[in-house]
Structure formats: C-alpha cells, structure tokens
C-alpha cells in the first residue's frame, strides 16, 4: 500500500501537469498566431470578431476537451482489459478492438445501406466487440504452446491484421481518398468540434463512471478465479460488465476521433508504477495520465510537420511501439 501523503502529492502534481499541458495545447504551434493573452481574453472577455479568440473558442477548446476525454477513456479501457485478462500486454489496440472498430466504420461509411441502419458509433462498437470476441475465443481455444499472455497477443495480432487487410480492401479502390482514410485510421483530433464533443461526452462519462465503480471487482479478480469464486463473487457478471465498458469507451473514442492506439497499453503501466497495484487508486491516475498523454500528442501533432498537421495517433504510435517492445522484453514470459 502506498503512503497516503505520497499519493496525495503525486495526485496534485499530476493535476498541475495536466492543467499546464492543456493550457499549452490551447495556443502552441498555431498557424494563425494565437497568444497566451488571446486564450485569456477568449475565456474572460470574448470578442467574436477577433480571429485568434474565435479559434480558441470554436476549434481549440472542443479539441482540447475531446483530447482529454479520449485519453481518459482509452486509458480506462486499457486498465480494465489488463485487469480482466490479468495480462500485462492486454490493450484495445493489441487485442484487436481498434482494428475491428476501424473495419466497422470503414464498412459503414462505404456501404450506404449499412450507414442508414447503423451509424458510425454503433458500427465502431460492433466491429470492435466482434474482433475482441474472436480474439478471446481464438486465444483461449489453443492451449498448446506458450503461456496465456503470449497466446492472446498472437490471436490479437492475427485478427488485427485480418481486420486491417479488409479495411484496406474496402478503401483501396477509392485511390484519391487514400490520404483522408489513412488520416482517419491513424486518429486525428484536428476535426473535433463542439458537435463531436456533444455526442461524445455523455457516453464517455458514463463509461468512465462505470469504470471507477468496477474497480473493487477488478481488485478481487486479481486474486485468481478460484479465490474469487470462494469469496462468492460472480465473476461472469463483472467480466461481462467490464467488457461492455471497454467497448463503450473505445467505440465512443474511435467514432469521435478515429483509431488511436497504444494509450491503453502504456498508461496503465505508468500508473501502476506510480501508484502500486490497487485499482481503486491507479485507475483514476491512469485516466489523468491518459488525458495528459493524448493532449501532449495533439500539441505535437501540430509541431512535427508545421505548418501542416500530423495525426496525433501516428505520433502516439511512434512513442507507444518502442514502449511495447520494452514491456515485452522486461516481462518474463
């Protein structure tokens, strides 16, 4: 158990960091010059004819809020997944949820009759859920060779690759559209507006509250299935709720900004490193860290190829993939 004073000071430090990163995100690397002062004026005394202030209110603010909430959602989803599977390598992007959701959205947006029936958010959740189900089935079906962690990851890779290839099959014929689709697949916050935010936040907030409420069960799950059963906990029930929460959080994020990977993999590990093993403590910390990470990546997305933009998801992948390698090498598998 971590010392309460240490937790408190770390928590304060993290919140301060998050505020600073958010503040920076509002004005850094703007093509249209936006200063710290403009941000202040936009919030305190808004002048609707000043371009810089309008940009802060109409573009930057919804973008920042979406980034924060996407980061928190993905981090929470990753934490729940690692808790449910008791697998340190589990994360939505590793276990096929992202690829499946992307396939669902690509199918829906290219086949008009599906579009009418489903809508993109539902399609993303359905696709992600189906892919995850397949991964869990495949991963638990072959007991031969290797331990469970490795098996799940291999199943995830196979299903992700399959979904990615089918997504490509859906879009490759529209060759002029390739660049746009690629940007969407990588996940970009550039087009997040108040509209996006309005349809995104209710779902995400419900998911996040659910995640916090689930933490005691996640703690018990870590004791192992047999122990949990002896304590009289209905495992199936909490597993089911956990899975639904993951799908809601990831599906909502993907339909808001596209498929952003690796947040769910990296952040829970960082949070665990800081806060120890208690889910009740490190899940909220993971949410804060996730929010900070995505916001930081979004700021960098305007810097890397200034004055053009690089999708934030591509930058996160560049940071996340080496971490994945590190994680794999560190763990004794």
């Amino acid at each position, binding site marked *: 158990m971590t010392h309460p004073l240490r937790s408190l000071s770390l928590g304060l430090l993290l919140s301060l960091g998050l505020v600073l990163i958010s503040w920076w995100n509002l004005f850094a690397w703007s093509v249209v010059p936006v200063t710290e002062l403009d941000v202040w004026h936009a919030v305190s005394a808004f002048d609707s004819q000043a371009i810089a202030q309008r940009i802060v209110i109409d573009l930057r603010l919804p973008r920042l809020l979406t980034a924060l909430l996407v980061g928190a959602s993905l981090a929470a989803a990753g934490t729940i997944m690692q808790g449910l599977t008791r697998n340190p390598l589990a994360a939505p992007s590793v276990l096929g949820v992202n690829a499946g959701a992307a396939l669902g959205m690509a199918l829906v947006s290219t086949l008009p009759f599906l579009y009418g029936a489903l809508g993109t958010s539902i399609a993303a959740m359905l696709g992600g859920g189906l892919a995850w189900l397949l991964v869990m089935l495949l991963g638990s079906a072959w007991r031969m060779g290797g331990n469970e962690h490795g098996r799940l990851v291999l199943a995830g890779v196979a299903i992700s690759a399959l979904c990615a290839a089918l997504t490509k099959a859906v879009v490759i014929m529209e060759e002029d*559209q390739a660049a746009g689709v690629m940007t969407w697949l990588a996940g970009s916050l550039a*087009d997040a507006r108040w509209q996006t935010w309005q349809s995104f936040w209710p779902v995400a907030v419900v998911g996040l509250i659910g995640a916090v409420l689930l933490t005691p069960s996640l703690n018990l799950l870590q004791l192992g299935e047999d122990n949990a059963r002896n304590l009289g906990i209905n495992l199936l029930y909490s597993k089911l709720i956990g899975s639904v929460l993951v799908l809601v959080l990831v599906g909502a994020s993907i339909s808001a900004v596209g498929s952003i990977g690796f947040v769910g993999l990296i952040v829970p590990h960082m949070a665990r490193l800081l806060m120890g093993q208690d889910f009740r403590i490190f899940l909220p910390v993971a949410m804060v860290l996730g929010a900070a990470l995505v916001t930081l990546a979004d700021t960098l997305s305007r810097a890397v190829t200034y004055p053009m933009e690089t999708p934030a998801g591509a930058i996160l992948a560049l940071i996340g993939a080496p971490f994945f390698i590190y994680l794999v090498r560190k763990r004794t598998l």
Partner: protein
Amino acid sequence: MLISAFKRLSLLVCSALLATSVQAVTVQDSKGPFSLDYEPKRIVVLEFSFADALASVGVVPVGIADDKDKNRVLPAVRDVIGDWQSVGTRSQPSLEVIASLNPDLIIADISRHEAVYDDLQKIAPTLILPSRRETYQDNLKAAAIIGKVVGKDTQMTERLAQHQQFMDAMAAKLPAKASVQFGVARADALFLHTDDSYAGGVIQALGMQTPASDRDDSAYRQTSLEQLLAINPEYIVVGNYVHPSIVDQWQNEPLWSLLQAVSHQRIFQVDPNVWSRCRGVMAAEHMATDLARIFAKS
C-alpha cells in the same frame, strides 16, 4: 503477330522509299531517346493528360486507362474521341487488355508505370512521359512531344499557340495578381492544390496567384479550417467530390464567416473531376473558362 510484323516491315519499307512523307521521329522521353518510323494508328494511353493531348490534335486512341469510368475523361475530349476500350485503372492497367488491342504505340506515365515499362515495350513501342504530379509547363512540353511522335507536329505547334492566345485572352478578363486557391473537398478532408500542382499552374498561367504555395513544397496538402484561415485567400474555388463535404460542414461554423473569401462571397464550386484528375490543353481551357465565368458573375 506475324501479320503485324509484316505490316510493320512493309511500313518500314514504305518509309524508306517515301522518306520525304513519313520520316522517323526521335524525341527525348523520360527514359532517353525514343524514335518511331511510322505514323501510329492504334494508340493506348495510360493517363488522362495523354488522351487530352491526342484529342487536341484530333487523334483518337483505341484504349484509355480510365479507372473503368468513362465519365472521368474530360467531356470535350470524349466528344473528339467517341468510344474507346477501357484498359483498367491508371495505377495498375491490365496488360492483357492492352495487348489484346494490338496497339502500335503506348503512352505511359513515368511515375505510375515505370515498373512495367519493359513489359509495355514488348507489346508496342512505349513513349514514357511525366503525367501524374506534372506541372502546367511540363504538360505543354509533353503535349509537344506527343504531337511529334504521332506525326502531327505542325498541328500541335499551331494548337499550342492557339492555346497560348486563348489563355492570354482569358487572363485579360481576370483580375491580375488576385489570390485564388483551388481545393478538392471530400467528406472528411480538404486538399489544397498549390502552384506545384497542375491546377495551381493554370491559375498562375492566367496571371493570378495561389497563396498556399509559400508555406511548404508539397503539391497537394490536407488542410484544416484553421490552416485555411491562416492562408485566407481572396478567392476560393472548391470541387466537392461528395455532398455534404467537409466544406459544407464548415459553412455552419462561425469561423467560416471570418474568411475574406466568404465575407465577400468569393467562394465558388467547380467540377472536381476536371480540376483535379484531368490535365492537358483542353482541360486547362476548361478550367480557364470556368474561372472567367465565375469572375464575370462576382
């Protein structure tokens, strides 16, 4: 094959005998010198700009790589050519269909078809020139080369001179030095064409400017509303591939009204296919006419 070889041999003999009427032409293409000693009758072109060059001197190709969609070819070019056989996509044309047309000249694009240049050579003599990502000036040079190879050198020279006059006449009707930005809009992205692009080159040839150019060196760039505000061109010309496109969505946002082109109502719609896929003398004249019509109204 035997027959066509005989045909070719007899043509060779004829050309040797009638050296005054049909001369071997040698031009420089992207792979070095290219020479042809007969006037090609069955031509297959693998990009739209080559079809445009042929049509502008009244030569009719038998096959076009048209992505299996005849509407992608410029209407004016379609009027000249009539019907043709599709040979598949521009990125991966079907070599067996090309071979089945028994062409005596293939015109290919160095950027897309270099990997199959040797195979194309086995089917017929292949003239390989830049097309995709070419500039307006590159295109005029390519058209002149095509004119020589198909034996219409004088017609092509005349046509190019006529084109120059046409563009000058159009330029006189248009405001000099105005900043005009063309972009293609899809459901989720707007791509601006800078002066390295073909459309940008046409706008410059008409004595106007493309403002996005001084920001970086790429010919097409994906642009957010914020970046568009930073560029803030006087005139915006948009080709919408779909409706509602991203530009349609932006129109509902308060920021949109801060663009000077919007507040002066200088935002116009054109055919995205002509403006972004078609290139060539006739395509450029189509674009110039579009612009003249737009500016007359505004």
